């Protein structure tokens, strides 16, 4: 049979990753101050099982490196479990490094590689296991002198069975054990060599087994029973015999049942994420095709048009329902994100020597998978900032009359079609005044503008690139680099970011996000013969203007908008399209860019509509300034601008 493992690769990788994440989350939980006492009894089993699954799946995929490392981790976890102990911080560090390494190796495997296990990690796991567990030597088994087997009871005959286990068998002693067990099923074992005890201990020298069994069955039946057992190189069954000793039948080994968890297994079907993306594409196409039909109806004579429109209405309702269901199928619980948080916080807390606990609520809330992917990094960043800059050292906290352990809360909740994510800490808080001063000093904002900001607005100044990266502000405000990236991600998802903070009491970042990113309102604009879409969430306003009448700074026209002015760039020249000739009245769309607000000069504002956004593939995905494509009712494809990257390009 053709045995092509590659087709299982994607499933292998995704399933293995889940085990890696669960293992990592479990290890962190194990370390929480009250983690051990509160851990359910089966907790160690659970960790062990994840390592075990990783090993088994890797072995099946012939990923020997991954299997080896997972096997060693399993051994260590098994050893701790057997002793009812929990590894110390050093041990957890090592196990987490191993988990990380496994994650990396699985990724490599997914890309077609066959990574080898790090010898260093394997050695360290070995050391951890032997340091923590007194290796109990297997009890030596004395071979008793074979006493003469008593005669078979009347009515039964003694049958002698000689079995050799095949060379290729990877578990010969179990084969032997199985033979003995099957023979027990049809008679009474009078003697066995090796003994049942030895077989249990995994000893079967020479891969051969000889058993005497007292049975009422004919020889043919004994042969039939043995024929059902695999991996036996030779089987000889004959009447009579006088060979080995019969050990008394041993009590069965104590079984170790898996503890049942409190939850019922959920019946689910797993489908590839790409398939759901495909469904969404098709549902989106249907919506577009429907609006195209509606367009066509406008050209129909009145009588015909009414019936046509009714049909289209019905079609649209069904299509919308389908679209909604597909969207619902893409919803993923936030646990995929929240499971990563304690680990991230722990690593940083350990590095910075702070005490931090992370509490999560609402991780059962479901959001669109694409949104989850996008929002993970920003939330992790906010969490790291909270540990790094928000939470004070234990000594400082005690002096301030706080609990020595800082608390970071990550909560999620739904409000209609939005999901609200909050990251709050009980740390030192941010200083709005200092941020105003720093932003002014950086030239990021005018003095008057800074003064007119509310405190909540001023706190968001930490998201300005020049401000957030400045060392002084980091020290004063307690917020580090990368806040601009956080805000950009949130805004690219059509979400908003807000901050509340009180000095000495803590800070709360709030992300308000749509539940889905696949449908967004866009503003359609025309440049020359090109029609382009700009996400409405990025647009602050639009107005008509004659560029040549505008005041210029360094040759760039300045457009008066609100209280200030914004530089105007010609969208036509940005995208390489020929725009309207100079002197024409143009429209200016005011939008956000890397360097603050800008105006984009376009030939015409066409209007606003809800667009089903489809990601770009192939070379188009690499074009800076384009984020997605949508199709108009008339069937025309329209690119959606990524204004940030467009202007930076």
């Amino acid at each position, binding site marked *: *049979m053709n045995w092509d493992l590659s087709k299982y690769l994607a499933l292998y990788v995704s*399933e293995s990753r889940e085990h890696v994440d669960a293992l990592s989350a479990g290890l962190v939980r194990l370390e929480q101050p009250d983690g051990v006492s509160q851990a359910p009894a089966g907790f160690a089993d659970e960790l062990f099982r994840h390592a075990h699954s990783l090993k088994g799946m890797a072995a099946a*995929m012939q990923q020997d490196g991954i299997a080896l490392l997972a096997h060693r981790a399993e051994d260590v976890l098994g050893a701790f479990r057997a002793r009812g102990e929990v590894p110390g911080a050093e041990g957890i560090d090592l196990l987490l490094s191993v988990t990380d390494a496994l994650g990396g190796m699985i990724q490599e495997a997914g890309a077609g590689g066959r990574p080898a296990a790090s010898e260093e990690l394997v050695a360290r796991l070995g050391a951890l296991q032997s340091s923590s567990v007194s290796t109990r030597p297997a009890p030596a088994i004395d071979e008793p002198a074979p006493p003469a087997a008593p005669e078979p009871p009347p009515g039964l005959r003694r049958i002698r069975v000689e079995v050799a286990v095949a060379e290729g068998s990877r578990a010969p002693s*179990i084969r032997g054990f*199985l033979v003995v067990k099957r023979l027990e099923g049809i008679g009474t074992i009078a003697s066995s060599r090796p003994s049942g005890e030895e*077989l249990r201990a995994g000893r079967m020298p020479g891969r051969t087994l000889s058993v005497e069994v007292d049975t009422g069955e004919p020889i043919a039946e004994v042969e039939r029973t043995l024929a*059902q057992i*695999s991996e036996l190189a030779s089987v000889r069954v004959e009447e009579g015999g006088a060979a080995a000793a019969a050990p008394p039948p041993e009590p069965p080994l104590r079984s170790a049942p*898996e503890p049942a968890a409190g939850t019922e297994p959920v019946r689910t079907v797993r489908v590839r994420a790409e398939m759901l993306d495909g469904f969404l594409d098709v549902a989106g196409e249907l919506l577009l095709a429907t609006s195209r039909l509606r367009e066509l109806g406008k050209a129909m004579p009145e009588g015909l048009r009414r019936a046509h429109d009714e049909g289209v209405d019905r079609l649209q309702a069904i299509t919308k329902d389908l679209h909604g269901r597909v969207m619902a199928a893409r919803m993923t619980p936030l646990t995929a994100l929240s499971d990563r948080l304690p680990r991230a916080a722990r690593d940083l807390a350990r590095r910075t020597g702070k005490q931090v606990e992370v509490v999560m609520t609402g991780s059962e809330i479901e959001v669109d998978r694409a949104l989850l992917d996008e929002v993970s990094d920003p939330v992790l960043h906010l969490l790291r900032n909270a540990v790094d800059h928000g939470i004070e050292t234990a000594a400082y906290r005690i002096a301030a009359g706080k609990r020595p352990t800082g608390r970071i809360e990550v909560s999620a909740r739904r409000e209609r079609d939005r999901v609200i994510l909050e990251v709050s800490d009980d740390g030192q808080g941010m200083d709005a005044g200092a941020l105003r001063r720093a932003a002014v000093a950086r030239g990021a904002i005018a003095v008057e503008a800074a003064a007119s900001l509310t405190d909540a607005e001023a706190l968001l100044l930490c998201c300005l690139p020049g401000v957030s990266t400045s060392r002084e502000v980091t020290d004063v405000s307690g917020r580090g680099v990368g806040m601009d990236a956080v805000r950009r991600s949130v805004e690219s998802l059509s979400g908003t970011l807000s901050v509340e903070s009180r000095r000495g009491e803590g800070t709360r970042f709030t992300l308000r996000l749509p539940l889905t990113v696949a449908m967004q309102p866009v503003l359609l604009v025309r440049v020359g013969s090109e029609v382009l879409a700009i996400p409405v969430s990025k647009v602050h306003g639009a107005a008509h203007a004659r560029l040549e009448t505008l005041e210029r700074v360094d040759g760039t026209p300045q457009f008066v908008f609100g209280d200030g002015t914004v530089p105007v760039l010609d969208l036509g020249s940005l995208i390489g399209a020929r725009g309207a000739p100079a002197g024409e009245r143009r429209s200016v769309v005011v939008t956000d860019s890397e360097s603050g607000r800008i105006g984009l000069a376009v030939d015409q504002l066409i209007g606003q509509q809800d667009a089903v956004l489809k990601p770009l593939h192939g070379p188009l995905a690499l074009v800076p300034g384009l984020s997605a494509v949508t199709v108009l009712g008339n069937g025309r494809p329209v690119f959606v601008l990524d204004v940030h990257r467009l202007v930076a390009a």
Partner: protein
Amino acid sequence: MKRVLIVDDAIFMRNMIREIFAAGGFEVVGEAANGLEAVEKFHELRPDFTTMDIVMPFQSGIEATREIVKADPSAVVIMCSALGQEALVREAIEAGASDFVVKPFQPEDVLSVVKKVVGES
């Protein structure tokens, strides 16, 4: 055609085993992801034989095998074990398992064990 129930907590393993049996001329009548489900499905589907992973959540393959064989002493349960699980396999045999295969396995390994135990499909 002999009917098989596949029990493994990894979807990936179930897919693999399912394909092995499909190509080997067996009918895969059901799948279960843990021991509890395995026992339930066994009673519902009455397969000719069952392949059983050992380490699974909710209820282990050993417990499930014990229950299945207790309810139907003629039930054929074949354990799918990983290397290094000898003790567990012995326990499963005590519990009534008919045979075992050791992961990672080749399709031929699985099919030859099964054909020995239940006869050709």
